[in-house]
């Protein structure tokens, strides 16, 4: 187990370099220049723009720029934003908790409600209400969250704050997770309930409640854990649409606006944090597999 963990962590390094290199290249290849100012006034001349580029080391060859940047990143120094001259680390540390708070609550509610709901739907799958609920979930799945956001804003802005509130954005973010996760749990549970070991458990006289919540559920959790793992990066990635509509200056908006203004240091800072969290959550998922299903032996699997 320890050896496996060490190897996985070591493997993360080249992956990390690869991801950051790719982000760096893509950002540089995108047309545009960070030093083009307001469109409405004449702005600085080309010489001035060149001087600013030189002052920030943007005139060096790309490999040199990447080298410089990477040597700072390993010390967690992303430099200063081209837009407002603030430390990127400072900007990230302001945005991260905001996104983390709403995404974390959404994850908690989404999966917390999806598991019991999915189990109930699987157990009572032949009942009429379960079928209706099933149908409603499919319909709900196709509601885009930005539209839901506008609806909530229009009808519930009387009771909840529009700017900087938590309730409405959390509902918007919980929605898709809840719908997808419930369907996932339901189908995995339906499969599990038809398995021989469930019949065997029932035959041995184990109470139905125990059969469902212990034996069947534990076996149907694997795909749910995978999904949970895939959702973890949302904790730091944020949602541009939701953050914009509810005026939450989180990671999604930060990265989006930085890309728009070609604020390379901020783009790279945000991308690095997201890459790290994505890789860590994948590792967590693999570890969770072993915990849930003892048949999976990490030493062999790797």
């Amino acid at each position, binding site marked *: 187990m320890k050896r496996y963990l060490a190897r996985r962590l070591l493997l993360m390094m080249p992956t990390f370099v690869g991801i950051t290199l790719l982000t760096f290249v893509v950002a540089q290849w995108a047309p545009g*220049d960070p030093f083009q*100012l307001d*469109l409405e*006034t*004449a*702005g600085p001349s080309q010489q001035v723009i060149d001087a600013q580029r030189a002052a920030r080391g943007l005139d060096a060859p790309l490999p040199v720029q990447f080298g410089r940047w990477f040597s700072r990143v390993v010390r967690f120094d992303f430099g200063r934003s081209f837009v407002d001259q603030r430390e990127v680390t400072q900007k990230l540390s*302001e945005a991260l908790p905001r996104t983390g708070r709403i995404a974390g609550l959404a994850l908690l509610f989404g999966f917390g409600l999806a598991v019991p709901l999915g189990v109930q739907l699987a157990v009572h799958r032949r009942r009429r209400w379960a079928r209706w609920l099933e149908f409603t979930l499919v319909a709900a799945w196709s509601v885009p969250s930005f539209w839901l956001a506008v609806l909530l804003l229009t009808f519930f802005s009387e009771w909840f704050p529009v700017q900087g509130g938590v309730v409405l954005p959390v509902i918007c973010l919980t929605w898709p997770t809840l719908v997808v996760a419930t369907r996932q749990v339901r189908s995995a549970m339906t499969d599990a309930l038809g398995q021989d070991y469930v019949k065997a458990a029932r035959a041995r006289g184990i109470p139905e409640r125990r059969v469902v919540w212990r034996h069947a559920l534990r076996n149907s959790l694997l795909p749910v854990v995978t999904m949970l793992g895939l959702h973890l990066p949302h904790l730091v990635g944020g949602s541009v649409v939701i953050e914009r509509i509810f005026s939450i*200056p989180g990671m999604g*908006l930060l990265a989006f606006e930085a890309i*728009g203004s070609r604020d390379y240091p901020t783009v790279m800072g945000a991308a690095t944090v997201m890459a790290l969290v994505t890789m860590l959550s994948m590792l967590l998922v693999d570890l969770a597999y072993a915990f849930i299903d003892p048949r999976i032996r990490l030493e062999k699997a790797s």
Partner: protein
Amino acid sequence: MTRAWLIAAVFFVAGCKKPSAPPSAPDADWLAGRAVTRGAPKNGGTLTVRLAIEPAGLTRLHDAFAEGTMTRITVGPIYQTLGGGLSSASESSVDHLTTRVTLRDGVTFHDGTPFTSADVKATLETILDEKNATSVLRSSLETLASVEAPDGRTVVLRWSRPYVFAEETLLNAVPIMPAHALMGDWDTLPIHRAPIGTGPYRFEKWEPGVALTYVKADARAHVQRIVFRFVKDETAAQTSWERGDFDVMTKISPAAWRAMEKQPWAWQQYQPVRFAENTYAWLGFNQRLPMFRDAKTRRALALLYPAQLVAKHVTLELEAQTTCPYYPPSKSCDASVTPLPFDPVQAQQLLSEAGWKRVDGVLQREGTKFTFAFLVPAQSVRMAKVLPLYLDTLKAAGIDARIETVDVSAYMSRVRPHDFEAIALSWASPTEQQDNFQNFHSSQAEVGSNFVGYVSPEVDALLEKIRVTWNVAERQALERQVHRLVYDEQAYLFLTRPPTLDAFKRGVQNVQPSLAWYDLASLWVEP
């Protein structure tokens, strides 16, 4: 009898409850967007202003912040300029090579340090320092050779050559900052995030992405606190506005402005304010390309622009058509210049005079087809609506034009190296006085803002003379000639002057629009 009493009682109660009943319909002032002031100044209260964009920084000296409209608006109440309250007198020598400014006594910065000539010297030297990213202001002050402070109340400026707009910039566009706050690495000075000035409001706090708060510095201001709230999303801003969260709603779209007239909440709670800032939108054709080189073709392109259709469907009759690169209410514009009408017949005639012939429905000249693309920034909602209307009339005239949309940051890197056929842009100036040298002088066609490559020896000579003409009336006479020439030769296809469309809560009094937005210190709030 009982019923009559009941009705009377209802009226009585209703009358008592609302001593000043809200208007039942919008009046003439309301519809025209004119704020009317009632009552006497009162102190206290908070003013919440919606901003659609967050300023990048709060010093207008820094290049990255200098040009942003939002920075201009938000730093307004913090700083003062020499011409805006910090000097008691300024006189120029006869040769216009020396300016002596006498400073006001008894002025202190918000942090308590007294204001002296050393602060003026430090601010100007910061701008002049080549190491600093202050090039936007530096280029306006390129003729400033030295700054001396012979005593605490006097500043002497020496100019390398006479240039009338440099003095204007010095007096009215340079916010004076305390010398002690300008020491250190310019890019990372704390003053960019926490400004210190001498204005009627002082900085309180800035929550990035959320809000910026100022607090009244002294008796010059009435309202205790000003909170700028950053609400970028249109829908969210509209919802908050309807809820009454904002005392000042800014950047109202023409459609929302027109919709207000039908919404009781809007005319009961808000007073819309509409005024013309010094800004105009234009279309530019790259005159380095043979197809746009002759003025006849450019006039034909103007005759094909469906201004009325655009006014009806896009700008909703809210914007004045313009022909002038100066501020129209000033005498710098020639009032006898009238906009070219929409006239496809006359356009056809001009095009054939210019040598264009129709072949298979498309105009051709010397074997090349009349086909080009408008380069448009992706974020420009207005151009996305205006250009398709124009494209239709061009197509009918045999001109095959398309729209090429690019990202905003990519836009200017195409425009500066002149890598375009046609562009859509607008110019804005926070002052009435403006030097059009950068925009129309032929020397600016390679490196300056003469992006379209307009070349006219006559206009060149006028623009050069304007820069050394101190007599305002004489200067305006020259500017009127420039106006006529650039319009006759269609240096730009001048479009409209988009007005500022804002709304103030009914209780906000003494709303004074100016070219630099509003004077926030003059406002007061009725409780």
